């Protein structure tokens, strides 16, 4: 799988290493939601992920500041690996990953307060889009995404062919995407 072609704002790691505080804020803004997505997928717990996000971002910033990132172009891979480690530590039931050398959290760029509202707003838009789906399509998405059911099982219980369920799912996802982007 190719690495993401964006990689975040250009020269981010170098600028952070040079002491550019604005670059730290950019890192948090760009990678914060990605780290949160990884934590959610790994822990299956959005509430815990919100708490873990802070630890992950502090760990990432500290490492980049101290020049622990050997190749600046590998920043996305590094961010993803830190998020994974934090999630694994959480799942193993250990104490949260703590920094070996505590740093003043106030000294780091904190995630913007707007981020939480933005996430809630986005979720509300998704909620709004889901409400516009046909009840059967919504039920199919619920079973796939929330209950982890297989298409074959859903098809059987709804008395449809598997292909019909797959098509309904694809159409529903397309519609959701269009609605969310359009709202």
């Amino acid at each position: 799988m190719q690495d993401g072609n964006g990689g975040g704002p250009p020269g981010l790691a170098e600028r952070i290493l040079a002491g550019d505080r604005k670059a730290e804020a950019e890192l948090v803004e760009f990678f914060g939601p990605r780290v949160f997505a990884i934590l959610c997928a790994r822990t299956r717990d959005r509430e815990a992920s919100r708490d873990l996000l802070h630890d992950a971002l502090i760990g990432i910033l500290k490492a980049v500041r101290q020049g622990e990132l050997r190749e600046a172009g590998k920043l996305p891979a590094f961010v993803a690996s830190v998020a994974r480690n934090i999630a694994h530590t959480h799942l193993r039931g250990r104490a949260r990953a703590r920094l070996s050398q505590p740093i003043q959290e106030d000294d780091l760029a904190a995630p913007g307060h707007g981020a939480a509202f933005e996430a809630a707003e986005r979720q509300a838009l998704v909620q709004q889009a889901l409400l516009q789906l046909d009840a059967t399509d919504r039920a199919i998405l619920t079973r796939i995404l929330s209950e982890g059911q297989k298409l074959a099982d859903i098809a059987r219980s709804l008395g449809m062919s598997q292909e019909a369920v797959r098509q309904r799912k694809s159409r529903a996802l397309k519609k959701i995407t269009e609605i969310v982007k359009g709202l």
Partner: protein
Amino acid sequence: MDCDQIEEAEIAEKYVTGQLDETEQADFETHFAGCQRCFEQVQLFEDMQAALAPGPRRGARWWPIFAVAASLLLAVGAATWFRLRPYSEREGGWAAASGTYSPARSALNPTALAMVEPPRYSQPHWRAAGQTGFDLAMQRYTRGDYAGATPGLLAVVKGDRGNSAAGFFLGICSLMQGLDDEAIAQLKAVIALGESPELEEAHLYLAKALLRKQDVPGAIAELRQAIGLHGPRQLEERSLLESIAKEAPTAK
């Protein structure tokens, strides 16, 4: 694998639903950490997953999100609002003011609509599992032993009429045993208590109990009450209301 291939292979969906192996998962994380297009897909799937997940039994932390949702619903405007409420005024559906219903003209299948999936119960995070009468009854409830849970819940309710949780689950136990009249009385008692963590679901399950009794206007009224609370089961409530409208589109 490039972004088109990732989309074609539905990798984001598989990632969010835990269908990738560890290596695939890590590879995809590295990819979307730097890829806006694939990240947006992941984010959309995670948001849908969160929106479609059953509401937490005791979690008050979701309410800010639904409060924002409510604000946005208002902001979207009248056009959308009218599209979201086809049950009352559209195409000769349910009469909003009177809630009247003509069974003779209805093709309603209340049995299908009133199918009851019992609400899940989880121990509140702030309280360890104990050996109180309520705890013991709920242990039976979680095993699906509704008849076994009933005496314990009944005892709790008799001792403390303000215990909305015990009253609510007692109503559910009655519903699961087909004791619709008892369920209706119990759920109405919970609603009469006013604001409680069980209020929204009490309206929802009361609607289902009323559907079983063919009281469609009553069920609609309860569903509207539930929807008005903008709680975590809003989607299900709207969906049920929508289904009632579809089942009996000409009923007045």
